[in-house]
C-alpha cells in the first residue's frame, strides 16, 4: 500500500512539474527556431525535428536600424526601476506597517484598519483610472519619460503591497519582543532596528518579491508614461511584434524577461520556506 502511495505521490509531482516546466521548454525550443520551423507544423527536438538557429536571440541585441530591438537598455532600465521602486516601497512600507501594527491612531472615525485600507485601496482602482492623474502630475513635474518619474509611480503602486504584507507580518510578531528589547535597555528606535527589523527579514523578502513581480511585469504604466527617452522591458518586447509575429524572438525575450525573477526566487527561497520567528514565542 505504501508503495502505491509513494508512486502516486511521485507521479503527481512529476506531472505538476511538467505542467509548470512545459511552457518554458516550449519557449526555449521556439527561441531557436526560424520562420519555417515555426510555421511548418509542430516540431519539438532541435537537430532532429528542426535545425536550431540563434536568429531569435540575435534580434534582441541588434539595433532597430539593423532590424532588431536592442533590449539591453530597456532591460537595465527595468532592473533599475523595479529595484529602486521595490527598495523604497519596502523601506517606507515596513516603517508604515510597523507604526500601524504597534501604535493606535485615531482621527475622528479613522482608525488603524482604515489607514491600512487606504493603502490597499490604491490597488483596488483599475490602472486606467490612475493613468491620467499620473500623466498630468508627471507632466507638471517634468518627469514624464524619465526613470525617476517611473520610480515614483511604481512606489505609489507597490507600497500598498508592502504595507499590506508587512502589517500582517508585524501583527504576528509578539509585541512582547519589542517590550523585552525596551526592558533590556533599547529605546524605541533601537528596539526596532536591533530586534524587530532583523526578525522581519522573511516578511520583507516576501513583500520585496511581490513588489518586484508586480513592478517587473507592469506594461500599462511603462507604456503610458514613456515615449522615446526611456523604455522598459515589457514595452520593448511588445515592440518586437510586426506584421509577421516573430515567435522565435518573442520566446527568447520572454525567457530573458523571466530570468531575473527566477534568480531572485531561488535566492530568497530559504526565507520563504521557513519563518525566522519560531523561537521568539513558543
Amino acid at each position, binding site marked *: 500500500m505504501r508503495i502505491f502511495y509513494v508512486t502516486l505521490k511521485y507521479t503527481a509531482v512529476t506531472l505538476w512539474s511538467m505542467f509548470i516546466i512545459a511552457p518554458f521548454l516550449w519557449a526555449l525550443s521556439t527561441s531557436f527556431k526560424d520562420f519555417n520551423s515555426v510555421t511548418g507544423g509542430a516540431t519539438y527536438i532541435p537537430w532532429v525535428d528542426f535545425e536550431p538557429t540563434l536568429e531569435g536571440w540575435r534580434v534582441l541585441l541588434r539595433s532597430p536600424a539593423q532590424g532588431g530591438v536592442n533590449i539591453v537598455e530597456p532591460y537595465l532600465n527595468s532592473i533599475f526601476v523595479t529595484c529602486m521602486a521595490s527598495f523604497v516601497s519596502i523601506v517606507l512600507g515596513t516603517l508604515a506597517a510597523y507604526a500601524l501594527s504597534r501604535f493606535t491612531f485615531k482621527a475622528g472615525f479613522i482608525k488603524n484598519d482604515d489607514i491600512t485600507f487606504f493603502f490597499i485601496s490604491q490597488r483596488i482602482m483599475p490602472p486606467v483610472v490612475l493613468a491620467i492623474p499620473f500623466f498630468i502630475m508627471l507632466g507638471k513635474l517634468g518627469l514624464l519619460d524619465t526613470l525617476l518619474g517611473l520610480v515614483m509611480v511604481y512606489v505609489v503602486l507597490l507600497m500598498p503591497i508592502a504595507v499590506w504584507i508587512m502589517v500582517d507580518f508585524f501583527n504576528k510578531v509578539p509585541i512582547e519582543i519589542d517590550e*523585552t528589547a*525596551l*526592558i533590556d535597555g533599547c529605546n524605541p528606535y533601537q528596539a526596532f532596528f536591533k530586534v524587530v527589523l532583523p*526578525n522581519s527579514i522573511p516578511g520583507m523578502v516576501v513583500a520585496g518579491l511581490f513588489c518586484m513581480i508586480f513592478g517587473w511585469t507592469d506594461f500599462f504604466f511603462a507604456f503610458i508614461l514613456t515615449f522615446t527617452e526611456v523604455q522598459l522591458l515589457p514595452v520593448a518586447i511588445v515592440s518586437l511584434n510586426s506584421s509577421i509575429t516573430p515567435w522565435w524572438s518573442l520566446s527568447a525575450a520572454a525567457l530573458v524577461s523571466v530570468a531575473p525573477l527566477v534568480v531572485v526566487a531561488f535566492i530568497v527561497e530559504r526565507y520563504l520556506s521557513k519563518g525566522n520567528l519560531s523561537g521568539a514565542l*513558543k
Partner: protein
Amino acid sequence: MTLAASNLTIERKDEFYLNNISFEMSPGKIYTIIGRTLSGKTTLLKTIAGLISQDSGKLTFNGNDFDIIPVWKRQVAMVYQQFINYPHLNVFENIAFPLKQRKLGKEEINDRVKQAIEQVGLVGFEGRKIQALSGGQQQRVALARSLVKNANILLLDEPLVNLDYKLREQLREEFKKIFSSKASEEAILIYTTTDPVEAMQLGGEVIVMDEGKILQQGSAKEIYENPITTKVAEITNDPAMNLFKGEIKGKKIKLNSKIELSLPKHFKDLTDGHYTFGIRASGITLAKSGFPFQIELAEISGSETFLHLGQGQVHVVGLLDAVKNFDIGETVSVIFDIEKLYAFGSDGILMSSPYSGTK
C-alpha cells in the same frame, strides 16, 4: 530601597485593569502575586516595568518618582509566560544583549554571561540558536537574560505556565534556589501565578489580586490559614475551597434538611444566623457513618482521587487519599472534618477560621 505604589489605577472603556492598587515592597523578598486570568497581574508588572502608564496614582522607587523614568532606563528585568527571546541571536548573544546595551566591556560581559549560563544550567548551549532549544531551555535563556542585568526589580510573569508538568516541577525547584540567592542580593522579586500550589511553595509574601484589586497581602501561611474573604479562599486553593450557605442554630450547623454538623470549638463565639461555610477538599472525605452524597465526577490525580459530590443544593469537592474508580450517580457516605471549617459573613468576610478562631 523600596518600591511603593499608591492608588495605581488604570481604566479602559469603563473597565478597571488596576483599581486603587497600593503596596510597599522591600528587597530580599519574593512577592508572589496570585490571581485568576485577567485579574490585573500582568498589567501591574507592565506598569512597574514602565511599559504601561497608569491613569492615576504614583509609583516610587527609593522615594523617587518612578513614573518619569523611561522603561529602558529603569533597573528592571522581566520574564514573560511566553518564552520571549531574540530569535536572530544565539543563546550567548541573547543573554549578553542587555549588557551590550549598557556598553559594558567585553570581558565583563563574558564573565557575567558565563555566570548566568551556569546559574540556569545551560553550559554547553552557548552557541545554539534559540529555535534549537526546548521550551524549558528557552525559558532558562529568558531567565538568564533577566538575571545577568543584576536589576533592582525582577518581574516574573507566570514563567512556568507554558511548561509541561514535570518540567514545571523541576524548574520551580531550581527557580526557587535562584530566587533565594537573588533575593539575598537585595533585589525585589515579583512573581505572578494562577497556581495556588506554586504561590504557597515559593513562600515569601503573597498578594492576592482579583479584578484589578489587591484583596489580601500577607505571608503564604497567613493567607492559607486566614483567607479574609470567600474570593481569596477560592483563588488561593486548588481545588477552590468548597463554599456553601448554611445556618448556625442552637449548637448545630444546618446546611440543608439532611445535613447537620456539630458546631466546632472555633465557632463557639459565632451567633446564630446565616453564614457561608468553607472547607478545603482535604476536609471532606468518605467514611461509613456519613451523609449520603451522589458522585458527580471522580478525578484521579496522582495517588489521590478528587470527588465531586452533590446532595440537593450542596455541591462539594472531597478528597480520597487513594485511587479508586466510581460510577457517576453512585451514592457514597461523606464526612466533613468540622475542625477545618471556615465561616464567612453574608458579605463574604471571614468570621471564623480553624487557625485563629472567631474574629
